[in-house]
């Protein structure tokens, strides 16, 4: 009987662990870029996974020179080997490509969409004359950090470069250009120089936190090359500044949370309040303006809470998926008796002010009396 129950338990447990059989399709990234060399052999492995069944195939203009070794065609996660043997020459300059593609096997009715993921092998045959390309990379940073745009130049022509220009444009989420500059360089780059890297610091003052898009264009004689990148300044978009530490036990009481946006664009914000792990209040959603402050107001029923300390958790939600949390304690206290107005006593400040006012009046009276008596005389 025990064994049977254990078996049933295992079956139930495993059924909970069952995951969907389709995830799209994935591959460990392996983008290869090489210069052409006669009879060069490239031997690479690619691990595809995700879908329960997929095919792997080759495509592109280098396909006639390539061979695919697939240990389990049509199966699930596996590593395939690709052997690309280049010929003694390729008939045109520029980029040639071999695609190693994984395509999910799906049987759909009507209009069905099938995902495919592709790893490319790029082979570059040098151009005659000037030919270069640029790659732009800008990292995500926090607000107090320095932002640097990294440029990588490949001279793919058979002539050296002695000077080149790069224009850099940065746009914000509203597609407004917030920075634009042309950089001029006098730098010797030999023919077939690969991966020449350098950086320029960007003046982020006034940009604020947000997501940005950058576009770099390289200018050399008779051609241009462009590259894009996206980056983010600032990561936490919202701060919880203040909230009550005590609540009086007198029924439904307001609970006000002060928040501040650290983001350049409007955020939808609302908060959830938990006491001892149980949600006791949710605030309405408000729109918080760029770097704005706001107060989220909700109400908590304290009548069911005994006097004493409780664990308090405030979760403020913003944007589509963001949230910040604050954990603390909150004390439920006896309601304070109605305040009785105390008689006002004279204190030193009031006496001092009164004395000064009196002195000023005395001086003014004296001046007036003295002036009048002098005039009479």
């Amino acid at each position, binding site marked *: 009987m025990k064994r049977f129950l254990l078996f049933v338990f295992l079956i139930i447990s495993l059924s909970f662990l069952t995951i969907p059989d389709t995830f799209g399709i994935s591959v460990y990234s392996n983008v290869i870029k090489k210069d052409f060399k006669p009879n060069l052999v490239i031997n690479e492995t690619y691990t595809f996974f995700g879908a329960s069944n997929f095919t792997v195939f080759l495509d592109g203009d280098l396909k006639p020179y390539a061979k695919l070794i697939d240990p389990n065609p049509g199966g699930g996660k596996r590593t395939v080997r690709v052997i690309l043997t280049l010929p003694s020459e390729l008939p045109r300059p520029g980029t040639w490509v071999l695609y190693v593609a994984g395509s999910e096997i799906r049987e759909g*009715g009507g209009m*069905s969409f099938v*995902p495919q993921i592709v*790893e490319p092998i790029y082979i570059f045959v040098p151009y005659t004359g000037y030919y270069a390309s640029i790659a732009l*990379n800008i990292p995500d940073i926090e607000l107090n950090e320095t932002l640097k745009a990294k440029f990588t130049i490949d001279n793919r022509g058979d002539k050296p470069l002695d000077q080149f220009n790069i224009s850099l444009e940065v746009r914000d989420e509203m597609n407004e250009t917030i920075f634009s500059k042309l950089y001029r360089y006098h730098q010797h780059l030999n023919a077939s120089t690969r991966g020449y890297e350098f950086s320029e610091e960007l003046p982020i003052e006034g940009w604020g936190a947000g997501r940005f898009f950058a576009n770099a264009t390289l200018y050399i004689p008779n051609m241009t090359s462009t590259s894009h990148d996206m980056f983010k300044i600032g990561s936490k978009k919202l701060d919880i500044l203040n909230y009550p530490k005590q609540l009086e036990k007198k029924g439904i009481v307001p609970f006000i949370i002060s928040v501040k946006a650290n983001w350049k664009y409007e955020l939808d914000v609302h908060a959830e309040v938990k006491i001892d792990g149980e949600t006791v209040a949710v605030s309405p959603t408000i729109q918080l303006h760029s770097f704005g402050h706001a107060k989220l107001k909700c109400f908590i029923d304290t009548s069911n809470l005994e006097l004493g300390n409780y664990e308090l958790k405030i979760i403020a939600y913003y944007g589509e998926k963001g949230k910040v949390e604050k954990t603390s304690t909150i004390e439920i206290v006896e309601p304070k008796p109605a305040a009785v107005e105390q008689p006002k006593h004279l204190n030193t400040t009031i006496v001092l002010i009164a004395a000064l006012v009196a002195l000023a009046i005395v001086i003014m009276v004296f001046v007036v009396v003295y002036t009048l008596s002098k005039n009479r005389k």
Partner: protein
Amino acid sequence: MAEVSNRVLAALLIVAIVVSLGGTMISLSKIKQLSYPVLSGLATGDLEKYGLVNITVESVAALYIADTRDTIDFGTGHVNITDFSGNNCTMYINGSYGNEDYYNDTKDYGCAGDWADTWKSKAHVIVVENVGSTYLNVSLQSNETASDFLESVSSGVEGFYLWAQDNETGSCADTPESGIWQDWWSVTTSKIELCDCLNQSAKSTSKNSIAIGAKVVIPGDFVASKRSSEQKVRINITAVDKGDTC
């Protein structure tokens, strides 16, 4: 034998402790300097090589179309030919997931059966999502055109169009030429680039997906051999890994 006094015992104890501690310290300091192999218990070789944990994090290129969202199903219906219908039924869906725009001709103007309305409750746009840590170039290729998929006897009014847009604003960093992005284009069997640079999920999990809509114009003189059977069209969404930069 004379009895040893407590003072002598205490002195001996102190000497023993000093010798023990001193010997331990000298051993520990000298043991590293031994130049010949000896059983010392000390790790041999370059000490800096020991005690390290190496973790290699792989970049992954990944494209995801949820299996509940990989089909646009217009349902079953027929073309209601009237004086006003133009002898066809037009239906479309576009927009972003959960916020779609739907259209179909009314029954008097061509669409009958599910096509008159009920298909809307089941249909959604297709969501193509970059769930990897690299940027992706995304393109689309259909295996059939309108004349294959919705073949008419003679009218030639059949139509099959697709629509692409950000599912989450800011997902595609480099949109294609006009006429493809946020517009209907007539489907051919050629490959069409939808987005040169689809944002990686490592940079933004909320801005990394494209929505694809579809429009069909079903002719009143749909060929008899294809009636009463489900019409299928397969559309490959191909994502080429672009690595860390666009």
